[in-house]
C-alpha cells in the first residue's frame, strides 16, 4: 500500500500513539462545527431511542467486563465494554456532539480497533445492552467524518469499485475460477465450476480473499460439490463476493449496494438458495444487517453458511468419506455464526461426522471468545496488529488449554478467525494447526 503506516503502536496502549494515516490525516480537515453537525445528523436521523436507552441505562456495574476478551487479556478498565462506551458515545451525548478532532481520533481507534463487535458482552449485561451497536454508531460517525483506519477504508473502497473486498477485477475472477477448474480437472476429469447456470439448486458465494489468496478453497468446494452431484453455479459477474467491510466502516450506503448486488446475482439466476463459504462476518451482513438495511425482514433467498450445508450433506448421507480425520481437533465457534446464528450444535455434528477425536475448547458455543480479528479489526491492518494480538491473550489461553488436553488442530469455519488465530498461534507459540471444515472434508472425501 502506498499511503502506508508504520507499526509503532506501544504495548497495551491502543490509543497512546496512533500511527494510522487514515485516522491522522482524516482528522486534519475536521472542525468542531463539522463534527457536531455530523454527530447530530447521525444521532437524530439514524439512531432513535435505541442508542439513548443503551447509553442511559448502563449503570457501570462492570459485569460486561468479564464478557470482553480485551478486558480479560489486557486487564484494564478502559477496555471494558462500558469503558469503551464511556470514552465514545456517552461523552458525545453528554456534550451534545461538541467534541474535538482529537476526541474523534481517539474514538475512532476505540471503535474500529478495540471492539470486535462480537456481542459477547451483551450476554453478560443484566440489561442486555448491545455495546456492539453503540460502537457501530461511533464507526458510522467516523465514516461520515472520513476518519477511518487506512487499511479497512481501502477495503471499503475496493468494495465500491469492484463489488469485492480485494480489488479483484472482473476478468481476474473468472480467470481464477477457470484456473481452479483446470487444476481440479487434472484429478477429476470433466469436473466443472459451472458459471451462470439458471435455475441451479445452489448458488455458491465466497469472499474476496478466496480468489486472491486462498483459491484452493474454491478448488476444494468444487470437488465436494461434484462429489455429491450438486446442481450448483457461481456467477461470472460481480455479486460473487458475500463479504462486507463497508458494514464495519460504517458506510451503510455501500453495504446496501453490495448486498443488493449479491442477492440479485443469485436471484437473477433463479437459484434456489445461496450457500456461502466459511466466513462469519459475511453471514452477519447477508442474514441480519445488510438485508434489513435494504428493507427485507429476512434474506430474499434462503442463504446458509457452509457449516449448515456440510452438516446437511452428512445428515442426508449424501457424502462418502474414506475414514474420519484422526488427528485430535478442537473447534473455534465464530461469533457471527455461533452467537449470531446458533450454528454451534450443527458445527459439532459436523465435527463428530468428520473427526474421530474432538476436544472441546472452554468456554464454547455462544460463550466462545472472539478470535480478536472480527468486526473488521484485522482489516485495520499492520498499524494495529500488535494491539490486536495482545487482546487475543485470553484466546491463546483457551487454545493452549485445548492443546494440553491433546488437540492438535483448530477448526475455524471463518476467514477472519483464521487470520486472527494464525497470528495468536504464532505470537503465543501455541503450536496448533488451523483448518477449515472444507479442508477436513476434502482430505477425507471418498472419491471414485
Amino acid at each position: 500500500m502506498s499511503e502506508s503506516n508504520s507499526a509503532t503502536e506501544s504495548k497495551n496502549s491502543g490509543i497512546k500513539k496512533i500511527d494510522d494515516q487514515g485516522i491522522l490525516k482524516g482528522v486534519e480537515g475536521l472542525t468542531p462545527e463539522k463534527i457536531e453537525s455530523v454527530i447530530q445528523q447521525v444521532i437524530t436521523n439514524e439512531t432513535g431511542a435505541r442508542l439513548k436507552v443503551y447509553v442511559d441505562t448502563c449503570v457501570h456495574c462492570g459485569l460486561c467486563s468479564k464478557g470482553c476478551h480485551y478486558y480479560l487479556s489486557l486487564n484494564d478498565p478502559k477496555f471494558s465494554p462500558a469503558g469503551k462506551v464511556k470514552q465514545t458515545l456517552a461523552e458525545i451525548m453528554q456534550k451534545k456532539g461538541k467534541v474535538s478532532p482529537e476526541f474523534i481520533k481517539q474514538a475512532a481507534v476505540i471503535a474500529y480497533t478495540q471492539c470486535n463487535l462480537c456481542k459477547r458482552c451483551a450476554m453478560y449485561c443484566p440489561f442486555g445492552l448491545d455495546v456492539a451497536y453503540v460502537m457501530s454508531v461511533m464507526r458510522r460517525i467516523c465514516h461520515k467524518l472520513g476518519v477511518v483506519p487506512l487499511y479497512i477504508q481501502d477495503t471499503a473502497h475496493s468494495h465500491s469499485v469492484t463489488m469485492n473486498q480485494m480489488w479483484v477485477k472482473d476478468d481476474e475472477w473468472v480467470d481464477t475460477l477457470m484456473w481452479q477448474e483446470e487444476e481440479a480437472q487434472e484429478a477429476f476429469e470433466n469436473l466443472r465450476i459451472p458459471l451462470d447456470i439458471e435455475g441451479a439448486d445452489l448458488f455458491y458465494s465466497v469472499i474476496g480473499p478466496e480468489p486472491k489468496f486462498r483459491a484452493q478453497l474454491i478448488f476444494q468446494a468444487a470437488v465436494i460439490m461434484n462429489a455429491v452431484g450438486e446442481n450448483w453455479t457461481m456467477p461470472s459477474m460481480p455479486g460473487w463476493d458475500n463479504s462486507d467491510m463497508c458494514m464495519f466502516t460504517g458506510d451503510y450506503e455501500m453495504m446496501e449496494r453490495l448486498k443488493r448486488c449479491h442477492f440479485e446475482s443469485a436471484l437473477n439466476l433463479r437459484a434456489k438458495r445461496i450457500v456461502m463459504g466459511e466466513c462469519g462476518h459475511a453471514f452477519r451482513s447477508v442474514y441480519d444487517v445488510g438485508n434489513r438495511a435494504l428493507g427485507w425482514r429476512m434474506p430474499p433467498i434462503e442463504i446458509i453458511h457452509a457449516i449448515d450445508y456440510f452438516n446437511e450433506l452428512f445428515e442426508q448421507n449424501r457424502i462418502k468419506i474414506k475414514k474420519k480425520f484422526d488427528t485430535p481437533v478442537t473447534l473455534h465457534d465464530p461469533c457471527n455464526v455461533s452467537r449470531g446464528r446458533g450454528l454451534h450444535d450443527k458445527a459439532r455434528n459436523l465435527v463428530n461426522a468428520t473427526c474421530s477425536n474432538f476436544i472441546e475448547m472452554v468456554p464454547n458455543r455462544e460463550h466462545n471468545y472472539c478470535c480478536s480479528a472480527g468486526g473488521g479489526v484485522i482489516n485495520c491492518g499492520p498499524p494495529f496488529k500488535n494491539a490486536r494480538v495482545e487482546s487475543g491473550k485470553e484466546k491463546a489461553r483457551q487454545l493452549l488449554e485445548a492443546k494440553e488436553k491433546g488437540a492438535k488442530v483448530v477448526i475455524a469455519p471463518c476467514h477472519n478467525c483464521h487470520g486472527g488465530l494464525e497470528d495468536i498461534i504464532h505470537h503465543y507459540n501455541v503450536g496448533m494447526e488451523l483448518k477449515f471444515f472444507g479442508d477436513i472434508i476434502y482430505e477425507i472425501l471418498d472419491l471414485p
Partner: protein
Amino acid sequence: MINCDSWDWDKGKKEVGKFSDWREKFSYIEDISFSPDGEKIAAIVKNEDMEFTVSTQSEGAEPETWETGYDKVWNLRFGPDGRLSAFVSDTGEWKVSTDDNTWENGYDFIWNMRFNKSGVIAVSAQKELSYCAIINDVPWENEFSKLTDMVISPDGQSSTAVIESIPVLEGEIFKFRGGCYSVAVNGDAWDRNFMNVWKPSFSDDSSHVAASVRTSYNDYYIAVDGKTWDTPFSSVWEPCFDPNSQSVIAPVKRGGKWFLAKDGAIFWDRPYFQLWHQIYSPDGKRIAAIVAPEFGRWTLAIDNTPWQITFSDYLTDPIFSHDGRLACIFKDRGRWGVAVDGKAWDSIVDMAWIPVFSNDGDNIAVKVKKDGFYHIALNGKILDTKYEYIENPIFSPDGSTILIRGCQGGSYNRDVISIKGGFSYA
C-alpha cells in the same frame, strides 16, 4: 426485441435433437440451450482431439461440430438474431467466435458479452492489464486501468462503461476520495471525475448516458453526460431515461426513505422503505417501480400508487405489455408466483421466470418450476406437460400460438401450441 415474423408458427412438435446422440458422440457436454426460434440446439463439447468446441443440432440432422477446437470455450449464447457466439481461447489469447467465425483481435481476457436488440455484440476486454470495450471486433481507441459495468447502446453503435480515469493504487485512500472514476463512451471519458460511478445506461436514442455517482461518502448524484444533478442525495440507484424526452428518473434516498426523482427533483413524493427497478410503459406515459411501502413488504407502484397486494420476500421482473398491462414475479413466504395488474395468480410454484406478454397484451405465459419439473403457466394456470428443461415461452406475432422449447425424456423439442385451449392443467 426478437423478430419472429418469419419463424415456423405451424402448430405441432418437432424433435430438434436427442441427448443420447450427443452422449454417444461426445465425452464432455456442457448445458444444452435452444436458438431463439427453437430450430437448433447447441452446447460446449469436447471434440475427438479433446479440445473444447461447440456443437449444434437441427431437426433430422446429426450434431454438427465447429471445425475449430480451443483450449477453452465459455459463455456460449444465442444472440437475438439467432447467431451463436462464445468466448474462445487458444494459447492464452481470447477472442469471440460467432458461428465458428473468430474475430481478428485477441486479448488476454474477454467477458461480459452484451447484445443489442438486433444482435450486435459488445464485450469487455483486457490486454496487458489495460481495459477497453469492443463492439464487433472493433476496440475502443483509449484504454483504462480499470473497467466495469459495460453496456451496449440500443442502436448497437456505442458502448459505455465505468472506467478508472486517474490510476489509483491500493491504499491511496485520499487520492481515491478526490475522484478517480468516470464514464467512458466509445472510449472517450467524461471530463469530470467522481469518487465512484455505477451502472451507466443509454437513452433510447443512444445519444445520452446517465449513471449513479458519488462525490463524497455523503453526496450521491445522478450524472447525465458528465454533468450531475444539482441536488445531492444520501444514496441513489441506477437511473433510466424517459423514452419520449431526455429526462432522467432515478430512485433517490433522503431522510432514510426512498423516492423517485426526475431531473434532480423529487417526482414521486411518497416515501418508501425501498424503491428500485423503475420502468416506463412502452408509450412512455406511465412509470412502474418495485417498492417496499412498509418494512418487509414488497409490491409494484404505478405512477406512485402502490398495488394493494404486497409480498413478504421478493419482487422482480416488472414488465409492461404493449397496451399497458403490468406484470411481475413475486416470492411470498418462500413460494413464487405471478402478479398481474395488482392481482396474484392462484398458482404458486417453486420458481418462476420473467412474464411474457402476447403482442396484444391479452395473454401471459411464464416459465415455471414445480415439484422438480418445468412447466409453462398460461394466464394463471399451469399446463400439465412436464419438462426437464425449458426456455422462456414466445408468443407468435398474432398471439394465437406459443413456441415452447423444452426437453422431455432427453428429447429437445420445438413445440408450437395454440393458446385456445384443450390443455390439461397441473
